């Protein structure tokens, strides 16, 4: 059963008026230089019939339209190979669609210069590499790259953005440490600070918590929620753990074999049927006064 009727397009049951397509068109002009202050109406990412493939592969995603509503936290979930990371790459303009288009606030991401796009959209990957002797502070300052010209030195706005990033992530104590001396969780927090220093309207995260211990998993997700609540930053996160995605996301996009299986608020999307059909898992799903819980029981054949 594919609940196509709830796909982006979209019915009003989401009650988020600011994600109506008409709005996206109106903000196109100002989208290019939104600057540091995040306008809650900005940051809507949509794909229109995108076909995505890698060199030497067939289409991974074949003509999908999805929408990441502005100012919300959206999680892309699905089993391995369902195309969630591929879609995220396309949203970040790191993978060019064979067909169809990716729009940020009504304008194609590919039409922006790479610096323009980086001022609006930040991307955090699962694993990152940095020279071991780099200090965390130096690393975070690199987040200001899209805001600086070739010979421009750091200005007040850069200092302020970096300070705010350190505040939000809460890693002032790591500031002078070398990246090589950090634990995996601390490293990911430092990288998160780098992306926040970028001051994006849209934050894309590709399995940001996969290799982290529970404490750091929750810290990363908390920072993302805070950023969304305080600055209205649009967040799209690819998450392998549906139990966590359910707790943190306003919206879920469940993917199966490169196609959208279902879309909507977690309590609508996450059902025992979804877990069985998409994830192949027998699980108990409960929503107790908005507190979701998913308890997997066993793998289905």
């Amino acid at each position, binding site marked *: 059963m594919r609940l196509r009727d709830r796909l982006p397009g979209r019915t009003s049951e989401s009650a988020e008026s600011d994600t109506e397509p008409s709005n996206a068109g109106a903000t196109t002009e100002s989208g290019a230089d939104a600057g540091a202050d995040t306008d809650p109406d900005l940051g809507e990412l949509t794909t229109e019939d995108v076909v995505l493939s890698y060199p030497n592969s067939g289409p991974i995603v074949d003509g999908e339209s999805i929408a990441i509503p502005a100012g919300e936290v959206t999680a892309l979930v699905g089993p391995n190979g369902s195309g969630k990371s591929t879609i995220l790459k396309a949203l970040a303009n790191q993978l060019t669609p064979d067909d169809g288009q990716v729009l940020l606030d009504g304008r194609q991401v590919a039409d922006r210069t790479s610096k323009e796009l*980086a001022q609006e959209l930040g991307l955090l*990957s699962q694993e990152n590499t940095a020279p071991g*002797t780099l200090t965390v502070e130096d690393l975070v*300052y690199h987040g200001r790259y899209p805001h*600086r010209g*070739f010979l421009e030195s*750091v200005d007040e706005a850069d200092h302020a953005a970096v300070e705010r990033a350190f505040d939000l992530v809460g890693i002032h104590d790591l500031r002078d440490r070398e990246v090589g001396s950090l634990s995996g969780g601390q490293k990911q927090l430092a990288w998160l600070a780098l992306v926040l220093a970028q001051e994006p309207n849209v934050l894309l995260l590709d399995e940001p918590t996969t290799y982290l211990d529970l404490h750091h998993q929750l810290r990363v997700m908390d920072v993302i929620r805070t950023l969304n609540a305080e600055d209205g930053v649009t967040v799209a996160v690819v998450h392998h753990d549906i139990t966590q995605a359910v707790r943190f996301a306003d919206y879920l996009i469940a993917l199966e074999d490169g196609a959208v299986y279902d879309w909507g608020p977690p309590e609508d999307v996450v059902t025992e049927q979804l877990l069985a059909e998409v994830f192949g898992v027998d699980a108990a799903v409960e929503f107790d006064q908005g507190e979701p819980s998913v308890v997997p029981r066993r793998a289905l054949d």
Partner: protein
Amino acid sequence: MGSDTRTATRSGPGFEPTDWIGWMDARLFALCAVSTVIVVLGGLVQVSFGAYSMSVVEAWHAVFDPAVLSNPDVILALLLGGELPELENATLIVWNIRLPRVLVAILVGATLAVSGAIFQAVTRNELASPYILGVSSGAGLAVILTLVVFGSLAYMLPVIAALGGLTAFLAVYAIAWKGGTSPVRLVLAGVIVATVLNSLQTGLFFFADDLGVVKAAISWTTGSLTGTDWEQVRIAIVPALLSLAVAVLASRQLNVLLLGERTAASLGMNVELVRFLLATVGVIAAAAAVAVAGLVGFVGLIVPHVVRNTVGSNYTRLIVGCVFVGPALMVAADVGARLALSPVQLPVGIVTGLVGGPYFLYLMRKKHELGDL
């Protein structure tokens, strides 16, 4: 007090990653100071000793001979190759023969070291040297082709060598390019081009029947400063200074490139363009060195590691460090090359290899994370 200290360290001389003045820290300063002392001492030895011997004091006087220093015309005449006025013998030998050789050594050392540092970042490979993308094999083949086949063009050897190196670099890039490129593709293409060109080069030796030609060719492919004078300074100085300046200014791009292609791209860098431009700067620096000194080995590989070991991997500091340490190694090595077996002069590349190899070995034994970029 705690918060006061914090503010003090933030706004004080502590390193702000992007301040143009803030990058100088104590270790970098010490490194640059020691290197400068080595260059000055080495230079003093070079101008004092030789076939026309004079005492260190005499040499010192000659270097600071007011007849030269107080007269811009003389300096210009030396630099641009004009008529020289009547000068004392010592002054003439120092200023016309020995000092330019030291200057060439400084230029070659700085360009090779910076070029090596650039290529280590561009290819994300700690074993990268200025020659990794085919520059050496292209220049080498061009030189030997000229010496063996087109002997009449020998007077244009520096230009031919540089052009050969640049051509090989472009060929490497073209081979590596497939809708974009990557560090691994570039390095592999470099190996391919080097293999083919080196075979051709070795093959050509069979057609040289004059021992003098073979010696000249070997001296070129090992790297030598024998006989360099103001002519070589004139050839190298513009591309050298330009590429060094661009490298210092572009150091932030190198730092971001070191965060990986994906991160650099998501931060808004046009990775392919920036990588190509940086590689071009590195190749121009290397070509300037190759044109005047031939293929001096090891300097471009080792100096960035020595500097990185002292100041860390921030490229702003690393490049500045290379500009000082490269000349120190080169000038010191040339002292050995010129004076160790006097009156026979060795190609300086032999000495850099003999000094550099063991030093690299020492670093490897001492440090665990030597290669860490």
